[in-house]
């Protein structure tokens, strides 16, 4: 009872303070929104302070730990080299990872193309679009790695589970992106074509896809980039082959930080190339659009 009272009192005190304009000076009207934000920030800072003071460090010396970490970073980034992994091997492994990304993007893209058509509001009845859209949103809400692990139950941990899981997530991502691109085409244009006797497939292939091709391409490539990153993670986490697996072995198994550094640089190089191509494609699209 006592505690309840004190809490109540405290709450009153707080709200009194909140309402008095002196504390916030500026004279900005205190609406509900900013009030909520203030309460939220205050709670967060209190929690942070509480956590800092009560954390169990288990004898870790923060200063020393920071220094060690920096030292490791130095090894990784300043002295990349390799003993076990030849440069060509590494290159080949990256190709495998790229292959994984390509395959999953391709599968995902083809399936998403059809699902995208069926979930575009100007092309399909409302009931179907709603169904597919919510189904796909559900898939997208669960991270790729979880899907891979779910499929690993059936397919075993390895490249098969990785391909299926990544394809699954790619489908949901691309379906949303594609259907939104398709919806750019005005419903009235579709009406005009069907009034001239064209059927659904003809309209899709002669009007809808040509006019959204640029978007489709850029979304697909964007997904390819994401899948490349995913493929590295899957190599490490799900035992799908490729450079990710080497990274995992070098870091977690051999503790070879120099090799981790080298692999990081190789991946970085490929990522930059992909990014450059993507940027180039996007600027092309903007010119066209």
């Amino acid at each position, binding site marked *: 009872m006592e505690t309840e009272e004190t809490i109540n009192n405290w709450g009153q005190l707080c709200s009194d303070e909140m309402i008095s304009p002196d504390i916030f000076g500026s004279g900005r009207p205190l609406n509900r929104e900013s009030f909520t934000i203030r309460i939220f920030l205050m709670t967060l800072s209190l929690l942070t302070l509480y956590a800092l003071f009560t954390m169990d460090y288990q004898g870790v010396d923060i200063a020393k730990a920071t220094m060690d970490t920096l030292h490791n970073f130095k090894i990784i980034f300043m002295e990349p080299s390799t003993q076990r992994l030849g440069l060509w091997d590494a290159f080949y492994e990256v190709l495998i990872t790229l292959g994984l990304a390509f395959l999953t993007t391709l599968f995902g893209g083809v399936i998403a193309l059809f699902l995208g058509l069926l979930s575009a509001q100007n092309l399909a009845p409302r009931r179907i679009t709603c169904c597919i859209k919510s189904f796909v949103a559900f898939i997208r809400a669960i991270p790729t790695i979880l899907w891979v692990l779910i499929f690993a139950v059936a397919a075993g941990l390895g490249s098969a589970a990785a391909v299926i899981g990544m394809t699954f997530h790619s489908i949901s991502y691309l379906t949303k992106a594609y259907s939104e691109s398709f919806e750019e*085409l*005005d419903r*009235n*244009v579709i*009406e*005009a*074509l*069907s*009034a*001239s*006797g*064209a*059927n659904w*497939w*003809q*309209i*899709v*292939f*002669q*009007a809808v896809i*040509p*006019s959204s091709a640029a978007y489709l391409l850029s979304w697909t490539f964007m997904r390819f980039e994401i899948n490349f990153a995913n493929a590295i993670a899957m190599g490490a986490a799900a035992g799908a082959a490729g450079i990710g697996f080497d990274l995992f072995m070098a870091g977690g198994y051999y503790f070879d930080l120099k090799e981790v550094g080298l692999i990081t640089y190789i991946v970085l190089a490929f990522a930059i190339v992909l990014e450059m191509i993507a940027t180039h494609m996007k600027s092309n699209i903007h010119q*066209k659009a």
Partner: protein
Amino acid sequence: MTPETSNPLLELKNVIKYYNRTTPALADISFSIMDGQFISIIGPSGSGKSTLLRCINRMIEVSSGEVCFDGVITSQLKKRDLRKLRTKIGMIFQHYNLVDRLTVIENVLHGRLGYKSTMAGVLGRYSQEEKMQAHRIINILGLHDQVYQRCDQLSGGQKQRVGIARALVQNPRMILCDEPISSLDPNSSKIIMDLLRSISREMGITFIVNLHQVNVALKYSDRIIGVNKGKLVLDGSPDQLTTERISDIYGSTAKDLMTDSEERYAAG
């Protein structure tokens, strides 16, 4: 053109259309149209002009009544025959409804899709003849300099001419126009209306044109049909259309509307 000129090209019998249960968008409309006529439909906004037009090529299904085109009752047609019917009826729109990202020639060729098998249409296989015809029509409409331009680079009047070309390449018996000049300035409006009129005369194509501008209707049509609240309130030649009849159709707003459209047209 056809030997039996006594048979109407299009006949509507007691057409009724309900969008909801309460008020009909079209209430018992009947009329028939001879081959080669140029007909305007006028009426206030929301009176059912667009609905009426779309019931003719079954873009909208009628609730009851019959639409008879060239001796065929349209409501009985199956999918394939409906496509065949639609190839015979071109359509032109207020907002042109072209695929903006495609070129003029690609848009015009879309008018041929109705004649093709699904596969040939999907792959975009157009015969040499079809391409030549498309180019010929584009030339007639004065778009030869824009053939390979994307449609979003064209002016409104040019876009509407592409729309007309797309309808013409269908070799239609009849062309339906839903407010073809409502998005155009007076000058291009005049060009487009002159064009439609001369196409009607020279190619013997029947036109049904929804219009908001009464004086345009008076100037160009052989016959004017007036609708109000889904009912047919007028059907006659332009010289039968007096100011009183117009106010019957448009109600109290008639005066504003007349002056408004006169100003609009005087500028052109």
